[in-house]
C-alpha cells in the first residue's frame, strides 16, 4: 500500500486505473475535469490500457457507455451538474438495460444563475433514474467506494449502474493523504467482469427491444428487486473490502458517529459530515451534549432498516439537505420522515436546507442546529441563509 498526499480527483482516477475498465467515454465538465484529465494521462503514458472515447457531449458519453457495456466490457465515465442533466434520458436506458456502468458525479449546482460550486441538486435530481447512488466524504472514501462500485454494479444479483457522488471542489480539488491499494490486492478483490449476456456476433441477442404493457411492468419489478438486493450486496462488499484493505465505512449504507448514547443527531451526506464530526467532538467535550452524526452514504437504495435502527433512541434528528424540491422540501428530509412514519419510537425530524451553490455550512451553523433541535418541541424547517 502506498500512502500519498493527493487530490481527491486524482485518487478517484487512481482507483479507476486499478479497476482496469476497457472503455471510458469522457466529456470534461467542471468540477469533474481533473478526474478525466488524470485518466487521459494514464492512458497516454501507457499506464492504463483502455479505449478512451472523446465524445461531443454528455448525452453521447453515456450513450457510448451504454453501447460498450452492452458488448460486455467494464465501462466507466464521470460527469457533473449540467452534464448529468444532459445525460438524464439515457440514465434510464442504462438502468433499464441493467448495464453495470460506474460513473463518478462531482456534485455541483444547476443553473440558473450559473454556478460551478458544490451542492447536491444534480445527483438528487437524478434520484429516480434507477441508478445506485453512493455519497462519499473523503478522498480515501472516494477511491475505496469507486473500487467497490464496480464490484457492486457487476454482482449478478444487482446488475445496475452506479453513481459515486463526491462534492465538487470541497472534495474533488482538495489534497488529502490517501492509501492507494496495490494492484494485486485489487485484482483479488475485483475479479474480471464476466457478463451473463452480451452483444456477440457468435451468439446474437437483441438488447433494448420494445416492452409491451403486459411485460414492461415486470421488467421494472425486476429492477426494484435488484435495488433491494443491492442493500445486502453493498453491506457485504463493504465488509469484504474491510477484510482485504482494513477500511470500512459504517455498514456500507450509513455510517454512525458517536451514536451509542446520542439523544440528538444530524443526518447529512458528503463532505459536511467532516464538519459535523468536529462540532460533535467539541460540544460533547465542552457542553457534554449527547449528540451524534448519521452519515447517509447510500441514497438509492435507501437504507430503511439501518436508519430505523439508528434512530430508535433519538429524541431529535436534524436532516441537512444540499438540494431542494421546490414546492415541498429537501429530498433527504422527505425520505427520512417517510422511513420513520410507521415506527413507534421515532425522533422529531427537523429540516435544514443549506450549502446551495457552494455556500459554506460551517461549524457555527452546526452548533446552532444542535442548540435549536435540543431546545425545540416543534419541528423546525428552515434554510441556512446567514453569512
Amino acid at each position: 500500500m502506498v500512502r500519498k498526499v493527493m487530490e481527491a480527483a486524482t485518487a478517484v482516477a487512481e482507483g479507476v486505473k486499478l479497476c482496469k475498465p476497457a472503455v471510458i467515454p469522457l466529456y470534461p465538465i467542471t468540477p469533474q475535469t481533473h478526474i478525466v484529465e488524470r485518466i487521459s494521462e494514464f492512458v497516454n503514458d501507457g499506464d492504463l490500457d483502455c479505449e478512451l472515447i472523446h465524445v461531443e457531449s454528455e448525452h453521447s458519453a453515456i450513450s457510448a457507455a451504454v453501447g460498450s457495456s452492452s458488448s460486455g466490457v467494464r465501462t466507466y465515465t464521470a460527469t457533473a451538474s449540467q452534464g448529468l442533466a444532459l445525460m438524464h434520458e439515457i440514465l434510464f436506458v442504462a438502468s433499464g438495460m441493467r448495464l453495470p456502468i460506474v460513473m463518478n458525479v462531482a456534485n455541483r449546482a444547476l443553473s440558473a444563475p450559473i454556478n460551478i460550486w458544490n451542492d447536491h441538486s444534480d445527483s438528487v435530481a437524478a434520484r429516480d433514474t434507477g441508478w445506485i447512488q453512493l455519497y462519499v466524504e473523503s478522498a480515501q472514501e472516494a477511491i475505496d467506494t469507486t473500487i467497490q462500485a464496480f464490484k457492486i454494479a457487476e454482482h449478478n444479483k444487482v446488475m445496475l449502474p452506479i453513481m459515486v457522488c463526491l462534492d465538487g471542489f470541497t472534495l474533488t480539488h482538495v489534497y488529502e493523504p490517501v492509501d492507494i491499494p496495490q494492484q494485486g490486492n485489487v485484482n483479488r478483490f475485483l475479479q474480471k467482469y464476466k457478463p451473463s449476456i452480451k452483444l456477440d456476433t457468435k451468439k446474437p441477442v437483441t438488447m433494448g427491444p420494445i416492452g409491451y404493457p403486459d411485460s414492461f411492468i415486470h421488467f421494472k419489478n425486476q429492477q426494484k428487486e435488484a435495488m433491494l438486493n443491492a442493500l445486502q450486496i453493498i453491506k457485504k462488499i463493504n465488509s469484504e473490502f474491510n477484510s482485504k484493505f482494513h477500511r470500512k465505512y459504517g455498514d456500507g449504507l450509513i455510517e454512525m458517529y458517536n451514536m451509542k448514547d446520542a439523544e440528538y443527531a444530524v443526518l447529512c451526506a458528503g463532505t459536511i459530515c467532516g464538519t459535523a464530526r468536529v462540532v460533535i467532538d467539541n460540544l460533547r467535550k465542552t457542553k457534554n451534549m449527547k449528540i451524534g452524526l448519521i452519515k447517509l452514504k447510500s441514497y438509492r437504495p435507501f437504507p430503511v432498516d439501518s436508519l430505523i435502527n439508528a434512530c430508535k433512541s433519538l429524541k431529535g434528528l436534524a436532516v441537512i439537505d444540499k438540494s431542494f424540491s421546490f414546492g415541498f422540501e429537501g429530498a433527504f428530509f422527505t425520505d427520512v420522515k417517510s422511513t420513520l412514519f410507521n415506527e413507534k419510537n421515532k425522533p422529531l425530524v427537523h429540516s435544514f436546507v443549506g450549502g446551495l451553490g457552494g455556500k459554506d455550512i460551517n461549524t457555527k451553523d452546526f452548533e446552532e442546529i444542535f442548540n435549536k433541535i435540543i431546545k425545540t418541541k416543534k419541528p423546525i424547517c428552515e434554510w441556512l441563509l446567514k453569512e
Partner: protein
Amino acid sequence: MNKTKMIIGKKHKKCKPHKINPGAVVTEPGSSIINKTGSWRSLRPEWDKKKCTQCMSCWMYCPDCSIPVLNNKRIETDFEFCKGCGICAKECIFSSIVMIKEKK
C-alpha cells in the same frame, strides 16, 4: 422461442415475471419475424409490374425489409411488415409504385 413470444406480447396471459430476461434481452435471434408490424398501414403501395424496370431503388430505400427479392428480382410487397410510409413510391422514378388508400 418462448421467451421471445412473451416479450413481443403475443401470448399475454402465459407471461410470468420469472421467465423474463433481466434488461429485456431477447436471446433468440430473428424475433422480429414473428412480430408483424403491418397492421397500422393507412396507405398501401400498389406496384405495377409492367412499369417496373427492376432498378431496385425501392428495395434499397425501404426502411423495413418489406420488398422481398427472389432470383434477383423484386416481387410483391410484404404487407405483413409494410407500414405504408410511401418512401418506395417517392423514390420510384418510373412511377411503378403508387400509394392508394388502404381498405380493411
